[in-house]
């Protein structure tokens, strides 16, 4: 999985949990919560969907690494690839 593909997966999750948000034109290097109406419960939804749909565990201490799309890709892409390799 490339970092761009990883961002697409994250965007699909956000689209599902925040269906009223317009995801066009998001800046990839700006915090998602500064651009979208996401609260802490929504953020936990992202963590839950990663676990449920993709088997990826994000420990609480790593939550800041999901701040922006760029940081998500940086942190999650190796995890996606590890899960893929493990399978």
């Amino acid at each position: 999985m490339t970092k761009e593909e990883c961002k697409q997966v994250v965007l699909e999750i956000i689209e599902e949990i925040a269906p009223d948000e317009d995801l066009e034109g998001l800046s990839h290097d700006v915090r998602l919560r500064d651009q979208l109406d996401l609260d802490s419960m929504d953020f936990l939804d992202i963590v839950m969907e990663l676990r449920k749909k993709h088997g990826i565990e994000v420990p609480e201490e790593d939550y800041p690494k999901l701040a922006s799309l760029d940081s998500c890709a940086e942190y999650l892409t190796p995890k996606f690839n590890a899960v893929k390799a493990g399978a």
Partner: protein
Amino acid sequence: MSKETEAQRIVITGCGLTSPLGDDLATMRAALLRAEASIENIEMRHMGTVHAGVCHFDARRWQGRRELRNGTRAGSVAIYCAREAVADSGIDWDSVEKPRVGVYLGITEHGNVETENEIHNISQFDYDTRYWTHHHNPRTVANNPAGEVTLNMGITGPHYTIGAACAAGNAGIIQALWMLRLGEVDLALAGGVSESIHTFGIFAGFKSQGALARHDDPNKASRPFDKGRNGIVVSEGGAVYTMERLTDARARGAKIYGEVVGYHINSDAVDAVLPNAERQTQCMGAALAKAGLTAADVDIVNTHATSTPQGDIQECKAVRAVFPAESCPRTRVNNTKSYIGHAMGAAGALELAGNLPSFDDGIVHPTINVDDLDPECDTGNLVLNEPARADDGVRIILNNSFGMLGINSSLVVKRFAD
């Protein structure tokens, strides 16, 4: 009349509802006068096909998609009804002092739907609780439906639900009456809501109890007072009223649906599920006494009767004791569950809505599906299968709502007159 006394008079000035018969009062009333039931067959997890009263309101009218995804069905019902009630009341919502608004909603139960869904969810993950949603607690706290209303509408006054089994709809209205009389709030959004058709546990519980209705035609399954009745049809729904002190309602020239003039709540203290005619009799009598009325003054008695063999007989016994046909010539007895099933926590408030238009049209809707009247349910003044016109009009409604653990509630509402 002094201002102080007028401030103790509490009136209903707006109505928002969703029911299996429709999502506004006029639509519901029209179906009642056509004597048309609206019960569906639905597929229920672990149970197969069951009869249910289903609401089809447009939840997106007042809620965003994310709000709907995060909230509960009861919350959604409550928001729809509260918003519609305010719209119906003609209140200028933007200018309302939000700390002076109270939300008081009756519920039979809350949290079963979400808990069942989560157990089903983690069963797909070998019961690993890491997959249990973080939304569980805010969705299942008992104040959830009322709290969702405050979040949606920006209300900063008090909110809570009143857990009173199937007497809860009346209890919500009674709570509002108290809070308005005490001066705690200036506007109350009060009534009852139910999401019960989304939990298999309610259906399975009634089935195990031998109290779940079944019939080849779902629209004939809820048939209070008929010899062939065999149990309850579970329904969802809600009714929320705007309630105000008469002084405030007058000041803004509000339409007044009716004045809540009497009420009572008591307990059987006998059995968890079996009703008790003696306490029901006392409850109705006490409500009339608080209203300063006699039984002969009452035009319509809305029965709670749920179509169970035992429950209907007990209530009819109580109604006969309070309203003997020979000494109460004005009184007509009807039932709304024969159309919509049992809307649980919403029942009392929703059934009151069904009868309120009779103040204007002078018609008493019948209880339907009575092909073979059970003599033990014959109160002598039942309106059966066809609407009845009240020759002198309808002035007083007594609304019964009873529930498990032996809770009884009776509400007396009067056509508004100076």
